[in-house]
């Protein structure tokens, strides 16, 4: 039987934001705040840096645009030049649309798969799922979890700390075997 961390429940989004600030100020690193919906100002409260996902999306979008424009230029100027409606082989205004569409398509892939990469999903097993009560977090409960990998982790201290900052239903995450 291994332990993975401690979770504590809070009542409202506001309580969770305050808890996050206190956990951050106490010096914990490997903690997370779980809620049924994104909470405004939580990133600041937890001291998270801005997501790097934007760069991934930008790079993907640029790739898509270059690929689209390059593909059309290559097909119509190099691979198989054909006279179409008397326009030059390199009729670049006509390439704008496919260039744009591929830019959007690639950016969308960047956004969704980049998000999955940064979030490490799909991941079907996670210690927080060992708690039964925790399942309410996708409905109406607000939880703070502190993981065992945190350098400051000490089960008893963490438990009393979470209790002190107003957490209830404090649970230690343990697997079944």
């Amino acid at each position, binding site marked *: 039987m291994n332990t993975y961390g401690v979770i504590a429940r809070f009542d*409202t*989004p*506001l309580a*969770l*934001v305050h808890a996050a600030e206190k956990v951050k100020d106490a010096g914990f690193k490997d903690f*997370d*705040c*779980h*809620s*049924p*919906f*994104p*909470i*405004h*100002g*939580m*990133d600041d409260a*937890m001291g*998270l840096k801005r*997501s790097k*996902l*934007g760069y991934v999306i930008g790079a993907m*979008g640029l790739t898509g645009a270059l690929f689209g424009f390059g*593909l*059309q230029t290559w*097909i*119509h100027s190099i*691979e*198989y030049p*054909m006279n179409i*409606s008397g*326009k030059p082989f390199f*009729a670049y205004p*006509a*390439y704008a*649309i*496919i260039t*744009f*569409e*591929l830019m*959007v*398509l690639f*950016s*969308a892939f960047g*956004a*969704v798969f*980049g*998000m*999955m990469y*940064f*979030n490490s999903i799909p*991941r*079907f*097993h996670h210690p*927080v*799922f060992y708690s039964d009560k925790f399942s309410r*977090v*996708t*409905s*109406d409960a607000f939880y703070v979890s502190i993981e065992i990998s945190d350098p400051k982790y000490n089960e008893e201290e963490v438990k009393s700390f979470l209790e002190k900052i107003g957490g209830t239903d404090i649970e230690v995450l343990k697997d079944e075997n």
Partner: protein
Amino acid sequence: MLDNKIKSKAEIRAEKLLPGNQNFTTITDDIAGVPESKKTPIQWWLLFGFALSLLAIFAGSVGFLIWEGTGIWGINNPVFWGWAIINFVWWVGIGHAGTLISAILHLFRQNWRNAINRFAETMTLFAVICALVFPGIHVGRIWLAYWFFPIPNQMGLWPNMRSPLIWDFFAVFTYFTVSLLFWYTGLIPDLATLRDRAKTNLKRKIYGFFALGWRGGNRQWQHYELAYLVLAGISTPLVLSVHSVVSSDFATSIIPGWHTTIFPPYFVAGAIYSGFGMVMTLSIIARKVYNLGHIITVEHLDKMAQIMLLTGCMVGYAYSMEFFVAWYSGNAYESFAFVNRALGPYWWGYWVMIFCNVVVPQFFWFERYRRHIPFLFITSILVNIGMWFERFVIVVVTLHRDFMPGAWAMYNPTIFDVSIYVGTFGLFFTGFLLFLRFLPMVSIAEAKLVLPESNPHHGHEE
């Protein structure tokens, strides 16, 4: 001076959009309760049976079309573009409102969209599938439909990348893919909710598989929100581009009545207009069948009616500009094309279009009509009839009297034109009803954001 005792707009909005004493728990119960419930409403079964029978008609007609060829349609000289393109443009247009609601209104922080966006996005998905059917089957030899793709043939010849029809393929394909990704991304937290509430192990496994192990941590929300925002950001120009590209199928030609520069924004406005009509129809039915009047409120219907008024005025503006410039240009062919629309043998098509798209939405200047549900229901259907006729006027009425008067002819649709069109409703409603039954029709996570207590700064502003 600044400490007004007036309620903040956020509070008023929340009261109007989520009336009654609601909290996070009741929202989850109400919305997730629908797919979880063991009892399926009898109306659902009736509608589903109806949709399935239409789907059977669709399958039969398409099967016969593939067997026999496009000769079974009414297309003939000079009208070689008939119902297939009309239906294609019509269905793609309907899809656009879904993206608009999800994306543009998200960017404009219009929270009211949270109650209807899932709905609208799903509508987009199935509408685009219905639209994609038509280019797929109109090629006749359907097994060669892969010629759409940028793949060279045995002679090393590539599809013409400067052709609007290839642009169409890229645009609609991108649109479908991005809409699917957007829809699915929005669904992930809700699937996790369904997973956590699942009573049977099988349901838990299925929902759990698609929820990808979502656990609602803020470290996840952080990337998730950015991804969602960016998807909204790129969907906005995408949705504008898709119908602009569809309009280029016509506007890059030299046919009088087709070649006109206002086509892109005019098509986009028309698409949004018809799409909102369809969202209105569907949401009035769904809130009736599932008693969701407190989540999809009259307030939402009012807002949608306002957008229909706006876009209805836009298409009215485009019709007038086209007519005015057809005269102003001094081009005899251009003027003829427009006079022929209004006074030619198909005059009724033109005036149905004007009545449904320009006259009917004028009632929405009055709040009374924007909140009158039976009126809204009838209007929303009229709008889609009007928009179908708009495409009919553009496609058939323009072509049936072309440059050579000796070839002028009327267009006679056959039973298969009708059955395939009606059949796509079967495809659409079957998909949509399955969605209503098995997935949350309102975004559970986002519906909660309308409650003031979801904002930790609520009440701490001053």
